[in-house]
């Protein structure tokens, strides 16, 4: 499972859901794997940026021993290489209309910030390990990259 998934996961136990401590789940004894992508999915990063729980992601990166994420989240503009913005204005004018938007995005180059973020969220995977709830301490196992959130009989 890629690390971005942790941005959406909490404890599955209903009584934990209301507690702030149930998010994020804390990775423990994790074996990581980096699956490199050929290109950075810039439109996706831009779209998902406001939905990232930045402080919590920093905690996760820290607990996994990954390079620290900056203390404040990047802005959408930070994700784009500044030099590529001038060409996009021209192309936008030429292709007035809606098809232009896709082309505009295709011509934008991801910045180093975008590449770093892409590496952490969309290329780094948890292969084996545990995810632990900060509220109740329940451990969810990750095996072969698949986390198991099924609850035992007494916790449902």
């Amino acid at each position: 499972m890629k690390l971005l998934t942790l941005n959406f996961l909490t404890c599955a136990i209903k009584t934990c859901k209301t507690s702030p401590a149930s998010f994020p789940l804390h990775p423990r004894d994790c074996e990581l794997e980096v699956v490199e992508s050929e290109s950075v999915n810039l439109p996706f990063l831009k779209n998902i940026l406001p939905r990232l729980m930045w402080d919590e992601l920093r905690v996760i990166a820290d607990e996994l021993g990954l390079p620290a994420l900056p203390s404040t989240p990047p802005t959408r503009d930070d994700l784009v290489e500044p030099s590529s913005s001038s060409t996009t204005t021209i192309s936008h004018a030429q292709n007035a209309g809606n098809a232009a938007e896709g082309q505009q995005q295709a011509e934008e180059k991801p910045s180093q910030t975008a590449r770093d973020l892409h590496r952490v969220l969309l290329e780094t995977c948890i292969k084996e390990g545990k995810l632990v709830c900060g509220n109740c301490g329940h451990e969810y196992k990750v095996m072969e990259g698949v986390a198991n959130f099924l609850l035992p009989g007494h916790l449902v």
Partner: protein
Amino acid sequence: MPEYLVRLVQVHESFRKAELQALADVAGVGIEFVKYNQDSPFCIVRLPSDSAAEAVISRSLLSQGIYELWGQGPTYEALHTSIQELSSSKWLKYESTPFRFTLDGFRGTRTQTEQQAIIESFSYLGFNGPIRMRDPDVSFRVFEDYEDKALEPKHLYLGRFVAASGRDAKTAFDLKKRHYISTTSMDAELALLTANIALAATGKLFYDPFMGTGGFPVACAHFGAVVFGSDIDGRSIRGTGGSARKGQVGKKDVGGNFKQYDLESRYLGGFVSDLTNTPLRLLQHSNDSTNGGYLDGIVCDPPYGIREGLKVLGPREKLNVTERATHLDRFKEPTYIPPKRPYSFTAILDDILAFAVATLVENGRLSMWMPTANDEDVELVIPTHPCLEIVSICVQPFNKWSRRLLTYRRLPESEVSPNAPEMAKKEYEKGVKADELNDFRRKYFEGFKEFERLRQEPTPSEEDMMDSKGISGKWRKA
């Protein structure tokens, strides 16, 4: 806005308009339907430009292509007059362009000689460029629409080809060629269609809570979305136990399917979970803006309880003190299997809606399949939620039952009616056996006999039918 002719295919008719509308929404262009008929593969729409037409149709599953409409009429005479009126200004533009001119008949054919004569009758267009059947710069097509078994066509169109559809994907994603499938995998055409109607696109995040072998996530990833999914059965995600494919050996898993189509970079992963005890973050209160939705779309085919069990976590009967202690004692052992119980089908549908409300971004979409028995006398009940608006309902009919693709839009808080009651607490079927909990399953295995009987009896009164399935909002089958 100019008029375009969409050459549709004559399958899954009730999905076609919903698909075109959805694709226009994805492309961000306005579409206006001028002429559409369930029984005809010829649909006339208004779109702003050729590039808009291409953006819409290039992803379409249920069409062959889109053409700029140059004329139409009930007879060739009328067609020629119409072409004179509509498009004479455009003729000169193609005077010396290499071109192709072909004929397409629906429910009728012409001999080679007849075809030639028809094409010759358009010589007044004055195209003097070379004829190229392969890779022409511009391509024209005459469409003949016949009544069944009629000798003469009832309507004719002439169009200039603008763009081909994305129907090729149906072959590329064909289940027969997919490495890893299961008994309930959705066929590729319908999975891709679901992804289109749910507005899967580049930059978006999609989730399938009943992923199985990942057919829907694969389809959404094909259209550019980043996807993830879950299933209560971990074996289907991990892939141990092999595939439904006979004689297949070696490790096959959901990740492998993404690799097969070179979509791995858009697959976040799958996890094992139960929708009624989901580990995903849920919006706690509808006015909680700090913790808003994060999914652009949810696509799923929930278990019907026929070929695959409809189960959720939890023991069938309430645990007593000693049983609880045993679970508490043993749950960390590697061989421990969490107990599961059958669940009400109407309840799971409502759970999906509630989950969608708690996870979708504003205007995000939920597309889910729902099976129903085909009976005119029993009211069809579509699940509803005050925060979700029904966008489209598409029907795939079978002999005695049918299934519907229900698509909802997550309403922005400002559009949710303040008077809308919180989703009413409903009484669902009670019981511990699958048949007691799942009406559809029971009817299915009884061979839908009940309906044969009902058909002969007088129609039950309105009052009797009210809330027969315990759900508000009623749609009468069209």
